[in-house]
Structures are given as C-alpha cells and as structure tokens.
C-alpha cells in the first residue's frame, strides 16, 4: 500500500502507544487481580473465583505486550535495542515475574495439595506485583530520561534506574492496576466475595490519586521536557481533565451498582493516562538525560519508510480482525464467574 505523504514515524509512535495502551488496560486488570489475590481472596474457592475471572482472557491480554514489543522492534529497532539491553537486569526480573504469573494461573488449581496451591498463589501474587512495579519503573525512567551515549547506547546503571521518580511511577502503577483489577473483580463476582472486593475500591482509588498527585507535582517540577509539551499545546490539559473526570466517576458508578460503567471509566482513565504519557514524551522514545542531543526519537530511531509502510498495511489488516474476535470472546465470557470442571 502507498501511504503518500503520511508521517509514518508519528503514526507508528502512536500505534506502538496504542498497543501498549491495550496492554496496560487489558493485562492491567489481570495484574491487579494478582496484586489483590492474597489479600482480598482468603478461602480456596474465592481464590479460584479470582483466577477464573481472568482465566479465559489473561493469555490474550498478554499478547498485547508481545505484539507491542514486536512492533517496537520493527518500527524503532534502535529504541528496542537500547532500552532492552540498557535495562537488562530490570527486564530479566520482569520476565521472571511474568513467567511465574503465567504458569501460576495455569498450574495452581491442577493439584489439590495445600502446599502446592499456597506456592502458586504466592507466585501469582508476587509475579503480578513485580510485573506491575517493574513496568511502572521502566515507564518512569522513560519519562524522566536516561543517560544515552553518542552511539545511542544506554550509559547508566541498574541502581540508577531505581531513582525516586521511577519508583514513584512504579508504586503509582501498582495502585492503578490494583484499582482497575478490583473494579473488574466486582464485575465478575457476586455475593459475599463481591461485597468484600467492593470495600477495596475506595481505598485503592485514594491511594492511586495520592500517588498520581505526587507524580504530577514531581513531573511539573523536575521533568521540564514533558511539561514543555503541555505549555506548547495547552489543549493537552483536556486529557488531564478527562482522566480526573473518569476517576471521579468510578466511585459514583460503583455506589449505584453499575459496575460495568465503573470499569469503562477505569479503562478510559488508563487510556487517558497513556495518552498524556504519549503526548508528553513525543517525539522522544528515549529522552537522553543529561545530554538531550543523544535522544532517540520517532525520527532518528525508526525503520525505513518502506518497512513502516509495510507494517502499517499489516496493522490495518490485522488489528480490526483482532479487535473483532477479541470483543466476541469477551462477550462469550461475560457475566459472573461460575466454577465448573473446566475452571482453574
């Protein structure tokens, strides 16, 4: 396909963003369920309800990360190479966490011994917690900027990644995913368990808002290249307003018993947060701090226009089909969780 004068670099910046947004919205509630697993579900049956709430969908949700990673590799190979090799130990820890999260869901209920189940319950919880935290820390570093040398290679260290701003972003992400997961769980559970999960929502919203306010202040004070984007284009603040309204709408919908709308609000808030992240960092994919001239952008780190065009064709054919059957599959598994013999 010929895309004429279309700015393919910006389109792919946005598309990679869309894929990662899909990931955090969808796997976000899986990971949030994991974070709450040990605390909000006590009895074996309750834990099985939690696992089966995400059972049919978590696998497909994780594919958004795989595809996002693949798209990053294809569209911005220099970014993929620099970030993945630069954040080596952090990514290895993330892989470890994701592996335990995945197999724990699959293995946990296949054997009856309490010790077996306890081990995989913990694997699921700590795998989910670790993944959420590390994803947040990675995003925090991308927003803050990392040292990049003249070759375009990461010039920092692993301890350097654990700086306060990135850790704050990590904690914020955990709070956000836990909130999102709790809302999803209210949607999928009923009775006593639902009532119990419901009590978690407001504290989690408050925790998230506290983190988010701190994070915003830190961004305004210490991350000038992100605030610069908002100074240049003040209408971006509409996104912030959207996020605030979406978050504020959640307790309202929950108290009215309209869990589905609460969940949609939570999804909208996450999409808004990712959009803020995107417009705030554009055109930087890896902002070089302290030497901005070494930054990797959507233009200097991209693949050839030919490849970006081929990939866009692939995405335009593939994504609508993926969305169509994903929605159908969510529709098939709508409603409350009922445990049966195919359940985890």
């Amino acid at each position, binding site marked *: 396909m010929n895309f004429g004068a279309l700015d393919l670099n910006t389109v792919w910046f946005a598309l990679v963003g869309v894929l990662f947004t899909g990931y955090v919205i969808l796997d976000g509630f899986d990971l949030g369920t994991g974070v709450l697993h040990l605390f909000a579900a006590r009895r074996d049956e309750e834990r099985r309800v939690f696992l089966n709430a995400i059972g049919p969908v978590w696998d497909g949700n994780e594919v958004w990360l795989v595809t996002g990673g693949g798209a990053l590799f294809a569209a911005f190979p220099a970014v993929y190479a620099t970030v*993945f090799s630069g954040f080596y130990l952090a990514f290895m820890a993330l892989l470890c966490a994701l592996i335990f999260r995945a197999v724990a869901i*699959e293995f946990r209920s296949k054997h009856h011994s309490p010790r077996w189940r306890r081990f995989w319950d913990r694997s699921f919880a700590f795998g989910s917690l670790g993944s959420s935290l590390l994803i947040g820390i990675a995003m925090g570093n991308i927003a803050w900027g990392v040292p990049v040398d003249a070759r375009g290679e*990461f*010039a920092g260290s692993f301890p350097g990644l654990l700086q306060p701003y990135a850790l704050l972003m990590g904690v914020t992400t955990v709070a956000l995913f836990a909130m999102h997961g709790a809302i999803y769980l209210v949607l999928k559970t009923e009775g006593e368990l639902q009532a119990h999960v419901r009590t978690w929502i407001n504290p989690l919203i408050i925790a998230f808002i506290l983190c988010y306010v701190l994070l915003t202040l830190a961004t305004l004070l210490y991350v000038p290249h992100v605030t610069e984007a908002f100074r240049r284009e003040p209408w971006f603040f509409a996104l912030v307003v959207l996020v605030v309204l979406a978050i504020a709408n959640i307790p309202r919908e929950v108290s009215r018993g309209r869990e589905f709308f609460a969940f949609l609000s939570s999804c909208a808030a996450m999409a808004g947060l990712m959009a803020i992240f995107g417009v705030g960092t554009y055109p930087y994919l890896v902002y070089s701090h302290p030497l901005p001239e070494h930054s990797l952008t959507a233009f200097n780190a991209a*693949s050839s226009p*030919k490849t970006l065009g081929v990939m866009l064709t692939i995405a335009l054919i593939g994504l609508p089909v993926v969305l169509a059957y994903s929605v159908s599959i969510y529709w098939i598994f709508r409603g409350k969780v009922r445990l049966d013999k195919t359940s985890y």
Partner: protein
Amino acid sequence: MSTEVLARLQFAFTISFHYLYPPLSIGLGLLLVAIEGLWLKTKNPLYHQMARFWTKVFALTFAVGVATGIVMEFEFGTNWATYSRYVGDVFGSALAAEGIFAFFLESGFLAVLLFGWDKVGPKLHFFATCMVALGAHFSAIWIVVANSWMQTPAGFHLVGEGLHARAEITDFWAMVFNPSSMTRLAHTVVGAWQAGAWLVVSIGAWYLLKKQHRDFARASMKIGLALSLTASVLTLVTGDRSAAGVARNQPAKFAALEGHWETGPHARVHVVGWVDAKTETTHGLALPGGMLSWLAYGDTAAPVTGLRDIPRDERPPVNFTFQLFHLMVGIGFAMIALALWASWALWRRTLENSRALLWLLVISVLGPQIANQAGWWAAEVGRQPWIVYKLLRTSQGLSAVVHANQIVASLVMFTLVYLLLFAAFIFLLNEKIQHGPDETDLSPTGKLALGFKPAKGGPA
C-alpha cells in the same frame, strides 16, 4: 567465560527449553481439530471424551510455551542489541506480524477451546479449535521466515556503515519467500506434527500396556499413528528438499553437516562418523558412490563444495554440526520404521499383544523432541560464525552494554526457574495421565449436548 559464549549459552538454553512446547501445541492442535471434527461427524461420545482429555494436555503445554515464549521476544533486545539494530527493519516486521496474525488468534480462541465447552455450541467450539490450530501454525510461519532470512537473506539492501550499518527491506515478499523459508517451514511444521502425534501415541500405548481406558487408547492410537506415519514420511521428503537448499545456499553448512572436506564430484554420505577438524578428515561408515552429490543435486557426478575451500574463519564447528545432523537423521529414519511397524501391527490387530512394541511406542515421544532439538541446533550451529549469513558475525551482534556478570545472573535465574517449571510440568502431565480420561466426558453436557444422541458402540 566471555560475554559472547554466555549470551549464546543463554539463548541456546532458553530457546531449546521453549522449543519443547510449541511443537507439541502445533501437533496436538492439528490432532484436536481431527478429533473434534470426527466427533461432530460421527456424534460418537468417545471422540468427545478424547477431545476433552487432549485439550487438557494441550492447555498444559501451551501455558509453558507462552510463559517461555515471551522471554524469546525480549532476548533479541536484551542480549543481541547490535544484531537487533542491524536487522530490526527486516526481522522485526516478521516478529510483529507473528504477534498480530498468530498469537492473538491462538490465545484468543484458546479461551473458547478451554473454557467454552458449556458456553458455545459444538460448531462454534470446533471453529475455535480450528483457529487455535491455525494460530499455532501461523506462529511457526513467521518465526521460521525470520530465522530463514538469517540463513539466506533476501529482499534487502545494506544502508550506512560501521556502527550505523543495517539491513533495510527493499522487497517484503522476497524477504518472506527467501530461498530457504518455505522448505524449512515445511520441515519444521511436519517435525512439530510428529512431536504432537507421538505424544498421543505414547500415552495411548501406556494405557494399552496397563490395560486401562482401552477404547480411548485404541482410538487415540489410531489417530495419533495416522499423523505419525504421514508426518514421519513428510519429514523425510521436506528434510531432503531442505538439505538440497542448504547445499545451494549455504555450502559451508552443508559441508559441515556431512564432514565433507575436498571439493569434487561423487561426494560421500556417512551413516555414522567422527570429524577431526585438525587433520581435516572424517572417519566413519560411508555409503558407496556419490550419494551426497546425488542428494544435493540429483546427480552423483555433481561437485560438492568441501570445507577446505571455505576460509577457516568462516567454518562452523564441524564435528558438532555433523553429530547433531546425523542424530536428527538417524532418529528421523527410526521414527518412519516405528510408525510403519506400529501401523502394520495395528492393522493386523497384534499391537495390543506386543509388549515390546508398546514399550517402544511409550518412549517414542522422546524421538521427535530430540530430533527437533538436534535439527535446530544443527541449523543454527551450522550457520556459525554468522548470526546473519555472510552479513554479520555472531560476535558482532552482542549488546555493547551488557556485561558477563549480568548474563551469569540471568542465566542462573533461567536455569533455576526452568528446572522448576519443567518439574512442575512433568508432575502435572504425569498426574493427568495417571488420572486418565474422564468417564463423565462420555456424555456431553451444556450446549454441547444439544442435538447429540448417545451413539452405539465404539469407533473401532
């Protein structure tokens, strides 16, 4: 150890462990389509019971495949950053296509396959099973295309110099249909069919030995053996075509596969042997005549390039490549023989009385697994010292900023985690096998029961 050795060790370990599982998903996926198709056609509840049981085995292999697969996608960037920058324009697009076209399809419809039995009708469930199998096959397509491009690069040009050099796509379809991709894809897929088919045969044979679940075991054996026989013969055909392609496109690898030193006609094939790279000789049992020339070019007098005509610093580790290749070929022929023998015994109804044959079939599951691993190792080791053939050396593809001690840390982590996963997987698979097919599955429930009357008799 150097970062290069460590990075290669880690990649070899993680990909080899991962590759125990996707072939099972591909092979079992195809068998699930056959079994469920038979159930829809014959309405025999035995096929429903089989579909249920093999779906559970499928779920187990799929889970570990997914968990270890995500590692592979990250590892190009973490350990092979220079390679990633160099090939991203080409290789990345195949990987992204794999995500969009294969993984979403596979894992999306997996939900319906695993949890949808009582939620959707039989036809829709069958459709989901077909989509999962199709997705599994699609995933093979894109990753083999990407790997084949590293073996026989095509459809690209080089841009930039030194640190900034990279390959860029000039012709997407030439990249996809590069000289080796289709033959290698065919060989990989039929090898995967064997992995799934022999697992089914192996478990079926175990039940027959133990005289348990005999109707189930007999029916599973029949379907499993049908695919084993077909796939093992196709493996030979596709392997022959693949090797002939290697002779044309990668002469150094071809010479190493056979330990062939002197360029010339009437090149020989070794059945077994030992290559001494120092004295540049190969000892062993060789077939007479120009078999190698004939296999490569269909003519015993055709000259085959020998390793002496390959510069020393462009030769792969010869003996290792030779042994891996011969291990694969040896097992390949053994699987054909075993499939023929077992099919004959099944046809003559003597299979259940032959304990020796049943025992052989029980361990047959290891055959395709070892051969698939050995084959991939031969393909990858035989490409050395190149990571992208004739373009980029493996030693040049590493991550500049990752140090040896970091790789040691991650290698230790992967070793411990994967040992744990493997132990848990074997434990659960064994438990599933000991538990056997569920008697209650002989009567479908929920929406699946609609329009299904219990049939009389078994399929045998």
